[in-house]
């Protein structure tokens, strides 16, 4: 081994390497070995292997860190840092990718757009996310972001014969590129300030400057705009409803869970790292953004009749709640964000999975009318959806309550009473539109009798997400321990 590539470097990126290798393998096998569409199910094995190796890598990293008593493992001269924070988020990506891959099979068959490269796009996007959660260098982070975003541009437009899907992809691409421009601008300013792309060096350089320095302010503002775009915070949320609605539902699920989690991890790295010394500057700004985000998300969701769009707006409002954890900024707040992201993963994936089941051969199945009378047709799905929606609203004893609990507690601890009151009242607003869906499922009569799409994978994924949403709500201790130990090592 040379001095430029050590075994540590290798160890730090092994999960991402696995994802990239298997992604490439899927491309090749799909093309050469499995030309017959019926053989595509073997591709799922590849995804499973990729996730298995990735998970094993993460597990080894975790075990190594705790056996050495170290808080982080740094590779490539500090470009990549594997710490509890990164590993925690990566577990979320692994779960999201597995669930999405498993349910996509049936969905894409029904939509008539089943192509092997879809699975490699999932893996490549996850590879990008790996670097978003572990990167500590502007270039690494930027490449990770672009890798993830490019895969999503393609996946959002995956139903290429559907106008909606194409429109969504173009919108997402244009606005995404626009926001990346801002981010690149901010990054270049940071580089200009510090003369280095390492986050540590930038943090030191920014701290050395007075906070009113216009260059520092400009760097902070442009970076923040780029990041807020990515987590779809208002007023930079416009792409989200269209992209979410047009994309295949499985991709929407992936986009709203994994991509959001990765972006939040990215945002935390930047705001708590290089911009950490400017807290006094960005705290009021983020507080305003968070309030605006919750307002826009919750109020716009009220009138939606398309459930995917409704969930899109709801996911915007969830971004607002997560931002509040950063506004509070104490340990509880940061832990709160991690717990929030974890529970959000399960409940939001679950809610989208029910919509996946509603998509059948000739039925799009995304409207309030399509879900009407679901309780009569498939009580199991209806009850699961109820649990997911209650959890999204934050009603105990479901997992969502824990997320909200930490966010509210952190606001109380840091004395943000006003913010806390606004944030809690939006829970009541949210219940209104979530219960529009519930009302449709439980009170209305069914409009069509076609049975729901169902496959073993879908039922398994729904069962697991539903069980976890309830289990985290009723007995959260092990999950909270996990979040605690992974963050506070």
């Amino acid at each position, binding site marked *: 081994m040379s001095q430029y590539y050590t075994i540590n470097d290798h160890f730090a990126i092994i999960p991402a390497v696995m994802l990239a290798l298997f992604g490439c393998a899927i491309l090749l096998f799909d093309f050469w070995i499995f030309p017959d569409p019926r053989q595509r199910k073997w591709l799922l094995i590849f995804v499973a292997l990729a996730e298995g190796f990735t998970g094993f890598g993460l597990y080894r990293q975790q075990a190594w860190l705790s056996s050495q008593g170290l808080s982080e493992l740094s590779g490539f001269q500090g470009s990549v840092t594997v710490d509890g924070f990164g590993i925690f988020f990566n577990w979320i990506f692994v779960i999201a990718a597995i669930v999405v891959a498993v349910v996509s099979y049936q969905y894409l068959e029904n939509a008539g757009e089943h192509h092997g490269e879809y699975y490699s796009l999932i893996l490549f996007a996850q590879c990008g996310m790996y670097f978003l959660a572990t990167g500590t260098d502007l270039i690494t982070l930027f490449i990770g972001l672009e890798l993830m975003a490019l895969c999503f541009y393609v996946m959002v437009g995956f139903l290429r014969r559907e106008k909606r899907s194409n429109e969504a992809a173009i919108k997402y691409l244009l606005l995404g590129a626009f926001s990346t421009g801002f981010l690149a601008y901010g990054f270049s300013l940071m580089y200009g300030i510090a003369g280095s792309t390492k986050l540590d060096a930038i943090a030191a350089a920014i701290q050395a400057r007075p906070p009113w320095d216009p260059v520092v302010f400009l760097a902070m503002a442009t970076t923040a705009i780029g990041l807020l775009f990515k987590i779809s915070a208002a007023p930079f949320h416009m792409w989200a409803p269209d992209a979410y609605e047009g994309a295949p539902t499985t991709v929407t699920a992936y986009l709203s869970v994994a991509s959001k989690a990765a972006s939040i991890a990215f945002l935390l790295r930047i705001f708590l790292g290089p911009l950490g010394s400017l807290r006094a500057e960005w705290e009021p700004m983020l507080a305003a953004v968070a309030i605006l985000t919750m307002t826009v998300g919750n109020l716009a969701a009220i009138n939606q009749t398309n459930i995917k769009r409704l969930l899109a707006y709801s996911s915007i409002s969830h971004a607002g709640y997560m931002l509040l954890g950063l506004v509070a900024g104490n340990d509880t707040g940061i832990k709160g964000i991690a717990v929030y992201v974890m529970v959000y993963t399960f409940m939001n994936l679950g809610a989208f999975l029910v919509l996946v089941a509603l998509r059948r051969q000739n039925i799009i199945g995304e409207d309030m009318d399509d879900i009407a009378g679901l309780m009569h047709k498939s009580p199991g799905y209806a009850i699961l959806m109820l649990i997911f929606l209650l959890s999204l609203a934050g009603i105990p004893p479901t997992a969502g309550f824990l997320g909200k609990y930490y966010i509210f*507690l952190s606001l*109380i*601890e840091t004395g943000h009473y006003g913010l806390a009151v606004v944030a*809690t*009242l939006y*829970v009541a607003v949210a219940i209104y539109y979530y219960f529009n869906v519930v009302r449709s499922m*439980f009170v209305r009569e069914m409009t069509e009798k076609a049975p729901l799409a169902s496959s073993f994978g879908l039922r398994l994924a729904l069962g697991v997400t539903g069980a976890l949403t309830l289990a985290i709500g009723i007995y*959260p*201790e092990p999950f*909270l321990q996990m979040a605690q130990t992974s963050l506070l090592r």
Partner: protein
Amino acid sequence: MDQHLLSIVLLTPLAGLLVLIFIPASNKNLVKLWANLASLAGFLVSLPLVWRFQTGVSGFQFEEKADWIPTLGAHYHLGLDGISLLLVMLTTLMGFIATLSSWNGIQDRLKEYYAMFLLLQTGMIGVFLALDFFLFYIFWELVLVPMYFIIGVWGGPRKLYAAIKFFLYTLAGSVLMLLGILTLYFQHFSQFGFYSFEISELLKVNLSLGLQEWVFWLFFLGFAIKVPMFPFHTWLPDAHVEAPTAGSVILAAVLLKMGTYGFLRFSLPLLPQASMDRGIVQILAVLSIIGIIYGALVSLMQQDWKKLVAYSSVSHLGFCTLGIFSLNPNGIAGSVLQQINHGISTGMLFLIIGIVYERRHTRLISEYGGLAHVMPRFAVIFAIAMLSSAGLPLLNGFVGEFTILQGAFEANRAWAAFAVMGVILGAAYLLWLYQRTMLGQVTNGKNLTIPDMSFREVALFVPLIAWAIWIGVYPKPYFEVLQRPVAEIVERVRPGYFGGVMAERQQPPVPIVRAAGQASRPLQAPLIRGAR
């Protein structure tokens, strides 16, 4: 057995629910039978609480405690004192009666209906038993979802509006209450260095008056919306009118008591300085009195039988909150007893409305008249229910209202003077209701053929009427049960209240109300006026 008694009471309905899930929905009779058996079992397992309960022992009994979420400091901690004993018994009995009353009234989606009832039952019992704030909050919110469905699926024509209004109002209140809980919780952490949701731990927290007031108003919003107190009552008539009979019964008899219970168990002991702050007490008493009089006046004007009873709840619950904020043993003990009374009598009134509604499918008072000729049994039972609600001596309502007025008089004579008007108006709207529906000649031909009450329907009322007469004639055991916990609350809010009396009697005095029949004699209430 004894050390898990509360868990058994709490989990019996839930166990019934779990079995119910596996009964095929097509077998309607089995579903009905099982649900009734499960709720009867829920009542029966709660009976040992009555005779094993030790009167006069301070603190909580049958306590159970286990770690639940150590990271958050939340425990599975149940316990029972005199106040919660009465409310739990009310819950289990009314739960069974409400379930039984749905035998014919509910025809579709039976399995879901009964499942919701059993879930609701668990939530309500949990609220009254929890001694850990986290656990309490979970049960508190757990109640909302089944009630939403009971109103929203099996309710009347405007059921969806009423259901979501109920949900949003109470949820808005309870999330704000959560902020109050978290403030206390965090203050406890910063003073003692560890997180705990235990009520006994939170009682040790030292709060500045400003912080106490902030928490008090947050709690107030949560509890006052549930009670409901005057400006927050608008969800109640809608929910009551649209809910199916059994839903109204449970809503009136038990659900509303969660709010008053919250004031007693949490607001007063945890925030004593804020609770006895002159301004706050004045505001709450005035709101209660407005509720008493406004509720009664609006009841007088109602065309709809059920809406009349719904508004009468606002009035009666006004008495309960007035009693609480009199902050003396009479007021508080009377308030708890009046909560039970209101549960019994208003529960009966809603059952009565359900019986005529099943027969005529209208609730307009003008559609009825002279029913006493057609339904003699019904007329007698309605008369008893009506008189118990109006506060006739020898029936339960009188004892509660009288004790509350006594407490209010001690606190502030003007309050008592205004509240008495509520008693008079209460008699007025109830007697007038009875006159319009039951007396006179039968004016509407459709009423001539309606059948009288069946055996099952009469059976629903027997335990309630018996209970009403018991409380009315011999309320002593109730006051004895309540004496300790009430004295503890008063002692906490107004330290030294019993000081003068203690020297003579060595124990907090019993709020003395003689049997209602003798109550026309001057009562010895001033005995309790200690050093102030």
